[in-house]
């Protein structure tokens, strides 16, 4: 259906790009057309379940780490994008921290906190995390490599990864109480139940 509607809409594919009348502009747009073609011809698009994309981040000691190496031995994992200057992020990670040990015992959960702090604050990330007694696995993404690979707009942005290493759910922003929904989903995952992605 998707394919047929798309074809009806644009008999002349360049009609779309009349707003970029010069030849160079059209050539520039070809990659976009190519992606568009893929979009309409690929049976599987933005799937509910997909693997963690690879990007270069740094551990707290400054070593480069490839995100394809993120795993939690078949248990659920939360990937949470945050920053030291982001109040809702800190509220979310603090709320999770209050129940983290119990959840770890119950579900085998691991939380990976990815800080998007840039050079201005990146040196403060480790003291900030330790100063709050957080026991999360923490990485720094000072130039937004991993953030872009996961199409994150703003922080906080939270992903839920199942035991097979597939992203099954994501959520943007945090309001107090949101962690309850997240915990329910983590428990479902730990029991091997499927959850519907957003």
């Amino acid at each position: 259906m998707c394919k047929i509607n798309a074809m009806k809409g644009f008999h002349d594919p360049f009609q779309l790009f009349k707003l970029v009348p010069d030849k160079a502009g059209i050539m520039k747009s070809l990659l976009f057309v190519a992606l568009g073609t893929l979009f309409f011809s690929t049976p599987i698009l933005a799937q509910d379940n997909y693997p963690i994309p690879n990007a270069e981040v740094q551990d707290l000691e400054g070593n480069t780490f490839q995100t394809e190496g993120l795993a939690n031995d078949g248990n659920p994992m939360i990937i949470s994008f945050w920053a030291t200057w982001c109040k809702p992020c800190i509220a979310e990670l603090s709320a999770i921290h209050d129940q983290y040990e119990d959840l770890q015992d119950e579900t085998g959960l691991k939380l990976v906190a990815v800080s998007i702090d840039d050079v201005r604050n990146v040196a403060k990330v480790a003291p900030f995390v330790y100063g709050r007694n957080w026991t999360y696995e923490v990485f720094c993404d000072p130039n937004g490599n991993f953030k872009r690979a996961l199409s994150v707009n703003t922080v906080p942005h939270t992903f839920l990864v199942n035991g097979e290493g597939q992203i099954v759910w994501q959520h943007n922003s945090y309001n107090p109480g949101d962690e309850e929904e997240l915990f329910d989903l983590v428990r479902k995952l730990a029991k091997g139940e499927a959850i519907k992605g957003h």
Partner: protein
Amino acid sequence: MRNIFFGVLALALTGAMHAQLLSSPGQIHGNVGIDAQYYTNDSLIGAPEVPEKFRMNAFLNLVYTNNNFRAGARYEAYLPGPLLGFDPRFEGQGIPFRYAGYTLGDLDVTAGHFYEQFGNGLILRAYEERALGFDNPLDGFRAKYTLFGGIRLTALVGRQRYFFEMSDGVIKGFDAEASLNQLFPNQDFGKFRLLLGGSFVSRYQGAQEIPNPDDPNKILDIPLNVGSYAGRVNLGYGKFQMNGEFAWKINDPNFTNQFIYRPGNATYLSASYATKGLGITLQGKRVENFDFRSDRNESGNALLLNFIPMLNKQHTYTLPGTIYPYAVQANGELGWQADVNFTTPKWFRGKYSTLINLNFSMVNGLDTTRTGDRQGYTSALFNPGRLYYLDGNLEINQKISKKLKLNLMYMYLWVDRNQTQGLGTSPREIASHIAVADLTWKIAKRHTLRMEVQTLQTAQELDQIGDRVNGSWLMGMIEYSLSPNFFVSVMDQWAYENPVADFQIHYITTTVGYNSGATRIALSYGRQREGIVCIGGVCRQVPASNGLTLSLMSSF
């Protein structure tokens, strides 16, 4: 030619992708951001008239990945023009960002646009900060190669994005980084960690006739290739971590340094200690004549090639963060910061421990002496010059009960407002005391009320009576949220002590929002105060405005 090349490349890659599709369809993901405002006239707050009434900033990112292959593009539209406060040169629409790349073992290649940072970014940082309308990726080729599992090499050539065009200057860069612990994983170094790095970045920009300011009949002899070098060390021992980088740039006469021939340099140092319940960070920097862009004639936020971090706390409460913010002076400053995070142990405070953050920062200009020639000036290495900024603050977070959480903050702030905001050369010194109380009350499961009260106390400047920021401020905010989908908030900022009675304005804004999964829609109505918005070290001047704003963000 270049565009044709990319067209052909795109087609070839599409073919390759379709070939791969048979066995594996790959993934398409992306995100969307739309910010639109309907402007209403409000001369009292100084809002400029917007004849078209409506403006919008919007983008769509698409990212395709298939095993080791990736490609992506971003469409942006600023129609009929960018929102007030964004550079008007964004007006229009197009695809200013597209790339393709792959990873093959230890090799990673990108063609098209890419973002990059060498070390701490002192000589190269191509990055984006969408909320500021800041986007300076390079367009060209980049290759990364990892040797022996611990040496990382990066080489790149490209031109920088310039709104919907490209920079005149061409950038070449090379970076090498070696991690001792990753190179010799089987060696036991105990608690010792070492990382060394070095980089080189050069800009080529064609000849140009620039009159000599000292003698208008003569033309300046401008270097066509401007090279910069940087070396860095990252040293760790147990709970201690140190990071230092020194950068040097050959003479680069440019608009921001008034075309002087003095070489530039920058030093950044940080040391930290982190253990359970305690974290301490010390940072310092010295920057001299280090504004580096891919065009010698640019200024403001356009075509910046490097990143000089601000070293003060990134304040996010409204009054501390936006009334007197600080902007980096890349052509000369000396700054340092101390930051302590501390959690009281359970035996001391019982069940709910107290979190304390103590922060102090100070920025001075350099102590310089004018030479009267095209060298510009000489400077003392350590002697601080004029004070630009001083900020001491204490923040306490306390959970009071299962339902109540309280944040308190006090801050002493001293700024030379003319210097830090580029308003003038003569000092304009302002001292202020700021206090914030922020209470979160969990009324019931999923129902939360949050309240903020803030005040900024300062003496009025009677010689600045046309200024709407002048004098003391009060701010109140109340926010109700129904987790996980709804929130509504009302905020009032009141310039209650402005010496001009008409300027004792209430800036009231109401916001309603809806969140679902990775989608967020917010609608706000009210007054936006004129000021400076700063995120991650870069600032943008925002004029006053009044009206209805729609913001939509979504990832898929």
